[in-house]
Structure formats: structure tokens, C-alpha cells
């Protein structure tokens, strides 16, 4: 897979030496990364590595306190998620922001419903929303028989994909996925990875946050490794193997020590 042609333009989203302090606590410092059109940036790190802080900066939930954040080559500081959203940076959180008992199409348009008619007679464009939902999901390769089924009846992977499709339809150029595979089984995680690849092939930038190298490696183009709030490096796929990545993440020496300790016990 080559995405070399895309890298000529400035990346959709780029951070340089970025950092964030909460009072006296250094949550993140000196991190550099970028994601371009049709690229998947995987952000890997163990618990407490600074992944959440990193997402919060990108999605506009928290403003960064060090370094630079560039969107389409222009320096920005996001004051709210709405500002990031207006630039096409959408975040799909772990809880997916769906209402399980509501039909798929109602969830798809929740908060941004299509309406027709005027004044007190303004009502939902049910047909239009059903049709668009079906089409948009088809583009993601999800074939739902019935967009009227409650979204709670879909599998975890499918729900994740609906959330991604929703972000894309509402103008996302970059989708930030917060641990989309962590709660899923092997098969469902595979489904989500497939949709990430699909989104990438449609020309979206994807920021894929995970702590599982086995999920990241097959779909990632670049890998940002975080540990204790700092960057362990930003690698292209050709520069790193999955074994090296696992070892770096866990902290190679610490893992060796652990193996030693366990062997003795």
C-alpha cells in the first residue's frame, strides 16, 4: 500500500513538540506526529502513557500548553471540540455516543436531524434519513437489512462502524478513534480494522488509539509510541517490526526483568 502521493500536500493534522501540563503535572511533552489524507496514524501506549491527553488535544477537549498544532498547515489552538469538528476533526469515543434502544437511522442523525416543512409543521424527513443511513453504511461496507432495528441489536464492531460512518457523513476529514477495539473480541476487532482500512481508502485520515500492537500493525502507516507522557518515537511501518513495537511499549528491560522474576517464582 503506497500513500506516497498524498504526502506531498501538508498533512491534515500535525503536532510538533506538543505538550500539556495540568497545574504542576506534566501529562504529555515533546510529542510529534502527523496524519495525512488516506493515512492511518496509530497511537500506542500502555495505561497512563498519555494517550488520553493526546486525543483530548487533537479533539479540542483540552488546549495544548506547549508546542504547535497545525491543521492543513495552519497553526491552531482549539478552544472546544466544536472548533475541531468545524475543521473536520471528529472523535469517536469509546461509548460511541449512541442510544441503544433507538433505531440505527435515528442514532445516525441524532442531534443533526433532517427536517422538512415550515414553522410548527416542520417534521423529520424520515425517508431521507433512512435512505442516507443505508447508503452511508453501504459505503463503509456495512450491509444492514433494516435501518429500523435498534442500534443496541448490532454487534460491537458494527456499532463502532456506524459511529465512524456518522462522523464521516457529517464532514469529518480526520476520524480519531479512541480504543475502538479494546472491548471487542478477536473477530469483532477484525471487523473494525476492516472499516478503518475502508475509511483510509476513501481518503480519510485516521488516528487510531490502541494499546494492542497486533491491532495497530496491520492497518497503520505510522506509529506513535507513547510512554509516561513522552514520545518513544514516531515510526513509519517500514522502520519498525511488531516485535520491536511490543518491546518498546512495554519497556524492553522491564519486560526482561519481569520474565526473570516470574521464572524464579
Amino acid at each position, binding site marked *: 500500500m503506497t500513500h506516497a502521493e498524498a504526502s506531498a500536500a501538508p498533512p491534515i493534522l500535525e503536532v510538533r513538540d506538543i505538550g500539556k501540563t495540568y497545574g504542576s503535572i506534566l501529562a504529555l511533552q515533546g510529542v510529534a506526529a502527523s496524519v495525512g489524507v488516506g493515512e492511518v496514524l496509530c497511537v500506542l501506549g500502555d495505561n497512563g502513557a498519555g494517550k488520553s491527553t493526546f486525543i483530548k488535544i487533537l479533539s479540542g477537549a483540552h488546549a495544548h500548553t506547549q508546542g504547535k498544532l497545525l491543521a492543513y498547515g495552519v497553526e491552531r489552538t482549539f478552544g472546544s471540540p466544536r472548533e475541531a469538528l468545524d475543521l473536520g476533526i471528529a472523535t469517536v*469515543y469509546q*461509548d*460511541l*455516543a*449512541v*442510544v*441503544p*434502544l*433507538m433505531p440505527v437511522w*435515528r442514532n445516525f*442523525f*441524532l*442531534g*443533526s*436531524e433532517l*427536517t422538512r416543512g415550515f414553522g410548527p409543521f*416542520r*417534521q*423529520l424527513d*424520515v425517508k431521507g434519513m433512512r435512505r442516507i443511513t443505508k447508503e452511508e453504511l453501504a459505503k463503509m461496507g456495512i450491509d444492514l*437489512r*433494516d435501518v*429500523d*432495528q*435498534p442500534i*443496541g*441489536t448490532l454487534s460491537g464492531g458494527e456499532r463502532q462502524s456506524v459511529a465512524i460512518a456518522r462522523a464521516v457523513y457529517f464532514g469529518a476529514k480526520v476520524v480519531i478513534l479512541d480504543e475502538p477495539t479494546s472491548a471487542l473480541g478477536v473477530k469483532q476487532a477484525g471487523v473494525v480494522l476492516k472499516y478503518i482500512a475502508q475509511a483510509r481508502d476513501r481518503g480519510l485520515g485516521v488516528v487510531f488509539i490502541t494499546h494492542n500492537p497486533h491491532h495497530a500493525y496491520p492497518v497503520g502507516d505510522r506509529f506513535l509510541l507513547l510512554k509516561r507522557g513522552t514520545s518513544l518515537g514516531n515510526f513509519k511501518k517500514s522502520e519498525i517490526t511488531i516485535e520491536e513495537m511490543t518491546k518498546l511499549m512495554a519497556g524492553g528491560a522491564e519486560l526482561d526483568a519481569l520474565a526473570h522474576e516470574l521464572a524464579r517464582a
Partner: protein
Amino acid sequence: MTITAPAVTDERIKQAGLIITLLRRPEVGAAVAALAIFTFFSVSTQAFLTPAGVATWLYSASLFGIMAVAVALLMIGGEFDLSAGAMVGTTGLIVGIVTTEWGVNIWLALVVALAIALAIGAANAFVVMKTGLPSFIVTLATFFILQGVNLAVTKIITGTVSIQGMGAVPGFDAVKVFFGSSFNLFGMDVKVSIVWWIALTALATWILLRTRSGNWIFAVGGQITSSRQVGVPVMKVKMGLFMTTAGAGWLVGMLQLFDVSTVQATTGIGQEFIYIICAVVGGCLLTGGYGSAIGAALGALIYGMTLQGIVFAQWDNNWLKAFLGGMLLLAVLVNLYVRRQAGVRS
């Protein structure tokens, strides 16, 4: 999850589609029960199917139905209002006292009572939303406050516990056209409250299923954090729902006041649970996010038919409560079964 050949799975789901679509409607259980009860009393009593009989149970159902529909909207939005019953008395008493005791214009009195009701509804919503306390507790407090105030203030002002002489108030007959009149239809003496009931059920159903507000009501009741994340104005929706319930309380208060020309200080007390039962029998989930206005109206119809049917059958009236409890339990079980059939995991 079992794995079968894709083509076979597809066909199977398509065949089950119709039944599941039907089962997914929350009001199906109530419709079946209403039909059964209608049939039962029609066959077992003489008076049930006569024009006078039908008019009686429809009237009875309409007063509960208006409240049940409003309470159903609120329950779908994830909240309760235990002060809904007392509100019926409060609004009736306000109009009764200010017109008979102080000579206030009757139209103005209507507006004042409505404004006070809406303000109490808004206050309920405000406390619930700002504190995050369960609405069950907050409105239970409102219920007791209203109940106490209704009795105490009525006693202070009138010296008794009921309002007399409403019929002599100037303009009473003009207002009665809207709230207390009746007209002839197929030999039945149809009370105007039945028209209100049907119109409000239709309006509520349209709002729920075909407007943005309706979408938001389901959303805030189903998953409040998700609703916030996608930009649903949660506070506004809940505020609107509590005010709607209070407004419905006002309407029923007026319907009763102008029908019988008198109001007791205890009016409406003890009925709040009946509204909730009607809504639940009509398919509303106690946990919110699911239900129907038509279902709640059917729940009220079941209650109205049973209430009068027991009288027509000359049974001991106390059986009504036992029946109500049984109905509620059955409804909850049916809801559970239906949701499992529809495959909803929540």
C-alpha cells in the same frame, strides 16, 4: 451467536421481519389487552355497550388518558412526576378560589392557574437537572407540598375543604364550552374531554415519532450522556417534559372543575400512580427511552373500561385495585418479553 450460511440467515431474518416489526411497537400488548377487556365486559354486562355506557367509560378513560399521555412522554424522557395528580387539584382550586372568593375574571384565573402549573413543572425540572437527584424523590416532595398546601390554603380562605358556587361565576358557561360541554354522537352523550384526549394523543404521537423534539425525548431517556455528546439540548428537553406534564395537570383540573362545577381540596391525590401504571401498561419502560403515547392512551382506556365495567357488573369496587396491580405486573412481563423478542440489548 451461531454461524449459518449467509443466504439461509438472511431469509430467516426477512421472514421474521413482519412479526418483529409488529412486536417492536410498544403499544401492541396494551391493544390486545384492551380488546380482551372490551370483549369481556361487552359480553358479561348489559350496560357496557349501550350508548350511555360507552360514553361513561370513555369519559373516565379520557381524564386519565390525558395525564397518562403526558406522563408517558416524561417517562420516555427518563423521568417521573409524582406531583401530576396533586397538580390537578391545585389548578382547579386556584381557579375556584380566585373566582368565587376574590371575584377575579374567570379567563384571567385560567391563565394564572396555567402559569403557576408551568412554573411548578419548571421548578421540578430545574431541581432534578441541577442536583442530579432522582425525579422520583424530587416530585414526591412536590407532591406532598402541593397536597398540604391544597388543603391548608383552601381551609384558610374558604373555611371548608371544597369550592362551592362555581356555576354562579360570570363567564362560567362560556368556559364550560371548552372544558365541560358535551355533544351528541351516534346517540352517545360525548364529553368534550374525550376530544381533548384523542387530539392530545395524536399530537403527542406525531411529536414523538416525527419531530426533532420527539427524537430528543427518546434520546435523553435512553442514554443521557450520548445525547449530550451529539448536541441534544438535554436541559431544554427535560424542562419541556416536566412543564408538559404540569400543563396536562392543569387541563385535567379544568376539565373536572367545569364538568361538575366544584372541586375538592383532595382532588387528584392518589392518582399519580395510576397515570404511571397506564403508561407502563401502554409499553413505557420504567428506565426510560422507550414507550408510546398511543400505548399510554390505551392503558388509560383499559383503566376506564375496567373502572366502569366493574360497576356495571355490580362487583365489589375493591377488585379494581387488585386488577390494576395484576395488569401492571403482566404489562411489565410482556414488555420484558417483547424487548427480548425484538432483540434489544440495552
